[in-house]
């Protein structure tokens, strides 16, 4: 599977980027050359240099260390949203196909309703009203991205549900849960994985937007989005400040999208073969 993916040059680049991001997310706080919270009053708003590789922010904190330290939170936050979306989307998506009309109808309408909510505004409203914190924010985003997973799962499950081998299993006396286990789950997972990859990217970008607006993240904890926001605020003193966090966000989101595309393509080839 992975080997097949690696045939795409974009997938190779994506893997490389994601590997770096994964290392940052896991070891970032330990790799940081300075304490990300430590303030150096004698070095405010420094340009990149040998002591502070990416310079310092307005409080004299090492931007590079903050970037590293912020990786964990940023990545975990996206993963948290995606997990919530996965759980809330995939299970009903599967069941909506197999559990009868009424259940299906209700599910579809609820998902439609979720899709009708103005995305960021609703995330903000939810976060603010449930107590401003990253976990609340991610919970809100997770719920809002549920439809994406629901739809992917359901579309795939629908195409399987009408397959003759499902009917064959039923004719041999298989129960719905047996059918789900033996025939459906394994087939639904690949497209869900594709959706999860691209959604992780989307979440990263959404988290960045929320933190930019001051939602969800409480100082002094660094996140990529928060760093980008402060760097934009200090644009005059550090004209190239935003480049590093922006690049990190864009590269990660791009890598996840590219991976999703490659996954989709290779899946298509395989079924075509």
């Amino acid at each position: 599977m992975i080997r097949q993916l690696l045939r795409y040059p974009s997938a190779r680049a994506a893997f490389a980027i994601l590997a770096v991001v994964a290392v940052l997310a896991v070891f970032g706080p330990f790799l940081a050359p300075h304490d990300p919270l430590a303030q150096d009053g004698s070095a405010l708003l420094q340009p990149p240099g040998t002591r502070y590789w990416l310079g310092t922010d307005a409080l004299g904190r090492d931007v590079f260390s903050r970037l590293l330290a912020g990786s964990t939170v940023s990545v975990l936050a996206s993963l948290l949203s995606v997990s919530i979306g996965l759980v809330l989307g995939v299970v009903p998506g599967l069941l909506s196909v197999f559990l009868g009309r009424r259940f299906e109808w209700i599910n579809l309408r609820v998902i439609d309703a979720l899709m009708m909510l103005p995305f960021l505004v609703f995330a903000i409203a939810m976060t603010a009203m449930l107590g401003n914190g990253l976990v609340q924010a991610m919970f809100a985003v997770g719920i809002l991205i549920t439809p994406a997973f629901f739809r992917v799962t359901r579309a795939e499950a629908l195409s399987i549900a009408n397959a003759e081998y499902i009917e064959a299993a039923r004719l041999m006396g298989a129960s719905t849960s047996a059918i789900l286990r033996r025939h459906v789950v394994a087939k639904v997972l690949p497209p869900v994985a594709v959706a999860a990859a691209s959604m992780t990217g989307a979440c990263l970008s959404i988290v960045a937007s929320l933190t930019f607006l001051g939602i969800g993240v409480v100082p002094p904890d660094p996140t990529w989005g928060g760093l980008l926001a402060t760097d934009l605020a200090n644009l005059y003193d550090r004209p190239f400040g935003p480049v590093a966090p922006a690049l990190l966000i864009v590269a990660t989101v791009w890598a996840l999208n590219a991976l999703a595309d490659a996954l989709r393509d290779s899946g298509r080839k395989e079924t075509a073969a």
Partner: protein
Amino acid sequence: GCGGSGDKAAEKARVRWAFMLPTSWDPVTSRTGADINTVSLAYASLTRLDKDGNVQPALAQSWTYSPDGRTLTFQLRDKLKFTDGTPLDAAAVKAFFERGKTQKDSFLRPEIESIASFDTDGPLRVVFHLSRLDYQLPYVMAGRVGAIASPTAAAKDKAKLALWPIGAGPFKMVEFVPESHAYFVKNPDYWDAANIHVERLELTTLSEPTTTIASLVSGAIDVASIGPKRVEEARARKLTVTTAPSLNASDLMINRNKPPFDDPRVAEAVRYAIDRGELVKTLTAGLGTPTNQPFPPHYFAFDPQTRDKWAYDPARAKALLAQAGHAPGSLTVEIVINPLINEGLPELLQAQLGRVGIKSRLRIVPPGSSSWQSEVYIAKRPATAVDGTVGRESPVQNLLAVYGPQGIMNLSGPYAPPAFLKAIDEVRATPIDAPQYKERLQRATRLGAEQSPSVWLFSTPFIVATRSRVKHLNIVPSQIRWEGVTVE
């Protein structure tokens, strides 16, 4: 017929000012000190301050205290009228203050506590009968307390006044969208209209601080306050930057009713833990001044005797904490902050407290009625909060706002140090031209600063950036005014 003709002139003499909107357009229900900047667009006050903070005539031509100091009489100018046509006479003034006394949601009441009753003496003379000696009232009347609103409008619909001001100020409102903008045109009937050269004033809310300068450069706004660290950038972009003395001061409010600050030693420790020099250097690009009392050092109410107290002394702070039984790192406090305060201040305070072994967590409470106002100013729920004052017209008023029993910035309220209250009464009873006035005032400041747990940090001047077409900014210590401002 406002602005119907003379559109060209209005277009030319238009100023767009990015500031914030008042909590209410009715002086009686306006709640914060900063409101005076905007309330004074629509309203004229009985008196006004000059650049040095001295009282000058305004709606009132003159005022006199009776020899026993128990009555105060204001002589109004002739032929004043509100923008709704109602004459602004002694009766109108009396009606306004009576409303301030009686209206249920009035925030004026504590400010005019010392006035027992109001009288008129002819159409142009208002007489205040005082319940106690209070020589501060002429100062107080320079702010929102003396910003007289139309009694006709108030009688018609008090609630509407909060959204649509009817005063006799330099401007008249023509459009208002709550939390967005308020547009004004010049009021030809303003008593000092000759000095108003701005034909149209468009007040908008403060933009995202990161784009304020871009907005000035691109001409979307003409006047805006900027942070001290943006001065250099503003100058580099060919904007005019005006700095002027202010009464601004930042503080870390401390609630002595909440643990761990119910132990005075902990509160005292915090005072020694703060390195004000570092705050000034890091946060204000050197434009600020350290202060340990609610006034900047240049102001006459500043107490020089207190100046050197609570100098940065982490060792002493640690010792105090140890005495109170808190080992380093064993104490965690929650600091409530809001997004409008100086960027970086909370984190810096957090770091400084950390150095003496106090761990802290920041919690954001947005400014607004159901959160900051009710939670911090009214319910006084937090143990500590970062805030600041913009000052008041009268130093006594100012001291009461930060230390008094009903002061919104006294987080320990309704507690107020008794000695401080006594000293305040003494100040009130002292005529402002009396030789002992200054000394008594400084003593009240000293007592407040000593006996209240809140920690004052630093003061920053007014910093206003303007496009070059706007000239002669008029900034008095507690507010920005528009008399004399010209537009090219």
